């Protein structure tokens, strides 16, 4: 479809834009701010499926990273293990949450520093060919204050 127009709409209207035909809706997308120079970051969001059929997220890409991959965490043998997974199934009329410590999108090989407040465009690809453009704002890690250098004078 008119990807450029959708992309522009996403830029203009902010957080997310859902094309009229999309069955999956994206809520609360965010990319985690990381220390400058770090090669990778993560994106979190909630995927809501308005269709009765399941929707399967099979891929993603972004202009800020070499690759975007789905990863999951498992706790095994006393260690946290992160592994790439091929797809994430969003059940019919259900949702999947991409969140810290669980399922998440890895932005690998960042080609720029991520500034807090800036929006990162991520394209999601589903098994049925459906594509969603998400404009995810860069946020400080959960629970942290906006300013990274707080506490500087407390030492």
């Amino acid at each position, binding site marked *: 479809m008119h990807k450029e127009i959708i992309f522009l709409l996403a830029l203009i209207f902010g957080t997310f834009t859902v094309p009229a035909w999309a069955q999956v809706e994206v809520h609360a997308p965010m990319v985690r701010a990381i*220390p400058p120079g770090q090669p990778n970051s*993560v994106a979190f969001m909630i995927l809501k499926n308005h269709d009765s059929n399941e929707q399967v997220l099979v891929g993603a890409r972004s202009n800020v990273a070499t690759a975007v991959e789905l990863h999951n965490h498992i*706790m095994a043998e006393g260690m*946290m*293990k*992160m592994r*790439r997974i091929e797809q994430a199934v969003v059940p019919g009329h259900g949702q999947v949450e991409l969140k810290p410590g669980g399922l998440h999108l*890895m932005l690998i090989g960042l080609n720029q520093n991520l500034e807090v407040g800036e929006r990162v465009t991520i394209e999601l690809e589903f098994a049925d060919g459906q594509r969603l453009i998400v404009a995810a704002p860069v946020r400080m*890690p959960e629970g*942290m204050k906006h300013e990274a250098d707080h506490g500087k004078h407390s030492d």
Partner: protein
Amino acid sequence: MTRQWWVLTLLLLGAAVLGLGGGLWMQQRSNQVVDLYAGLGGDFTLAAGTGPVSLADYRDQVVMLFFGYTQCPDVCPTDLARMSAVLDGLTNEESAQVVGLFVSVDTERDTPRQVSDYAAFFHQRIVGITGSADEIAAVAKKYYVLYQQVEGDNTALGYTIDHSASTYLIGRDGKVKGLVQHSISVGEMIKAVRAVLAS
């Protein structure tokens, strides 16, 4: 009369034995509680960007100790962000007595400078340190920390490192007082840190 004295003596003796036994039993029990983390932890010296850092440098402070690596995609930022929120959630008086230590087990990629800069991004009271492979292995052994490098076969990431994700709470005497799990909330962790501050 004599008979009554005997009974009284026996009763007193019995009470003394019971008391002594009970006391010993209680002492043993309380020793067991105190010894919960015996043999776990101990002092170590590793390097920050500014030079050597020892756990003993933080005597009289409470230390939150966590092991990870800077290219850790999600687990370490989650834990360090929580540590940061805990430091901010304490009163100024309390947080002045608490420090975070982030030990990188990625001795191939992380330099002391990188680890220190990385940790400071989350909070100025979190100190990032690392060392040689042997030094890190020795510290990990003391703390029963597990870590293993995993080659990324099907991913654009280089290798990743599986690692323990518990945070050690170390008291003013340098001894481990508690372990908090990766899933703990900021509020629960503040409570746990306050308990160690008060101990």
